[in-house]
């Protein structure tokens, strides 16, 4: 069915009144938005060479499409600059894949928010923060790209709190949940390289994140000590599931791991083997299910899956690990996945450079 022409509203010329107008339309996340004036939307659209009506994402339950035009309108409202737009577009192209399970992860009581991890030179080119206060406020691209995701979920896909978004508690990432991978001092290949993209191509990884768990360890001096703290957090009784994992190691922790010669793969193996709970323990808290245990230990089970234990995830490469944050502090984090099972699988997509190619 052909898309309708984008609707134009007549709003007051006074900027504050126009902001109020946006509130009255129900277009905001609770915070003021930049009124999506036509010239600003056109400037945003210039960052993608395709026609504005190009559909980049589809919501399976509502049947609603996200066009480049609608994405641009919401990007303006979130406060994005045009050079941020390719990241937002790539994020929705990644989330459009069926395995991400767009509907479930945005509607569920689990209350997840799409975490975006931007990797590669484009993150630096547009001034993203991968450093101190990584998940906190203060950086325009991190804050507004993440916010644009939420506005699109609300305005385009109509995932409205209490109506179609049934999050029991939600999480603060539902306002904005977007970071850059830190390349400075990172001993491992960047995610975009590990994902197989050509040199110079940046990527965005989308993950249905169920919150944020700080992992504090200022006393550990070996990879085993540091990563055991991470594994314990991954396997706490509140978080352990068959789902995937995101771990962002603080530079202090990464230095300990990297200086010891540990690769990303070795760290993944260690975390997978250590992040586990016994069957008895899982039964003790009412979270044990035969079906889930069999999925982890049945045909095709990973060699590190220990009999009698429920591990987090199905295999080591379910764990995304990279580095981010400021130089000081033994504070890494674990981002639990949405859903008890494998409801959403993280996806990544390349970031297409804007047509003017100024930001390569």
């Amino acid at each position, binding site marked *: *069915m*052909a*898309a*309708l*022409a*984008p*609707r*134009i*509203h*007549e*709003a*007051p*010329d006074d*900027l504050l009144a*126009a902001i109020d*107008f*946006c509130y009255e339309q129900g*277009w905001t996340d609770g915070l003021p938005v930049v*009124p*999506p*004036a*036509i010239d600003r*939307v056109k400037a945003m659209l210039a960052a993608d060479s395709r026609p504005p*009506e190009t559909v980049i994402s589809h919501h*399976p*339950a509502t*049947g*609603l*499409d*996200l*066009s480049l*035009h*609608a994405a641009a*309108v*919401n990007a303006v*409202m979130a406060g994005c600059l045009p050079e941020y737009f390719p990241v937002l577009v790539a994020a929705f192209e990644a989330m459009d894949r*069926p395995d991400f*399970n767009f*509907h*479930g*992860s945005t*509607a*569920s009581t689990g209350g997840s928010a799409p975490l975006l991890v931007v990797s590669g030179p484009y993150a630096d080119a547009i001034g993203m923060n991968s450093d101190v206060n990584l998940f906190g406020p203060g950086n325009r691209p991190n804050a507004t790209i993440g916010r644009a995701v939420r*506005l699109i979920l609300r*305005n*385009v*896909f*109509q995932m409205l709190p209490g109506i179609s978004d049934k999050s029991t508690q939600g999480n603060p990432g539902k306002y904005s949940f977007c970071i850059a991978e830190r390349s400075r001092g990172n001993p491992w290949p960047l995610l975009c390289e590990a994902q197989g993209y050509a040199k110079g191509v940046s990527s965005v990884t989308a993950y249905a994140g169920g919150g944020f768990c700080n992992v504090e360890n200022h006393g550990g001096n070996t990879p085993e000590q540091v990563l055991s703290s991470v594994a314990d957090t991954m396997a706490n009784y509140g978080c352990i599931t068959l789902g995937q994992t995101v771990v962002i190691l603080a530079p202090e922790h990464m230095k300990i791991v990297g200086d010891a010669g540990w690769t990303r793969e070795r760290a993944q193996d260690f975390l997978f083997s250590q992040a586990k709970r016994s069957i008895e323990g899982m039964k003790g808290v009412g979270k044990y*299910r035969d*079906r889930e245990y069999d999925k982890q230990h049945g045909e095709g089970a990973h060699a590190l899956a220990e009999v009698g234990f429920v591990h987090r995830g199905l295999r080591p490469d379910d764990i995304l690990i990279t580095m981010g944050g400021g130089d000081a502090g033994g504070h890494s984090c674990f981002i639990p996945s949405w*859903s008890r*099972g*494998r*409801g959403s699988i993280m996806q990544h997509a390349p970031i297409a450079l804007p047509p003017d190619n100024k930001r390569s």
Partner: protein
Amino acid sequence: MQLYSPLSTTPKRKAFRAPPLASIDGLRIGILENGKLNAEEMLNEVAALFVERNGCVVRTLASKSNASAPAPGNTLVKVAQEVDFLITGLGD
């Protein structure tokens, strides 16, 4: 000031309800469980009431591997050929 709407430009879908059954007595029941804790148990209890009260017959138990994703099209096509009505619901 002219502002673009931030809403989707997709035309609204037309949704139709299936016509109501004239009677459920003696009909074939399908169960579609979503894999969540207690879903199968709860739906079987519901189906048992139809069996007891209306002489229905339980013909099919279909499962979803992903509770929050739509049932696969081939699952629905298969079930539709085997039953007269389907019971489904959330478990947890």
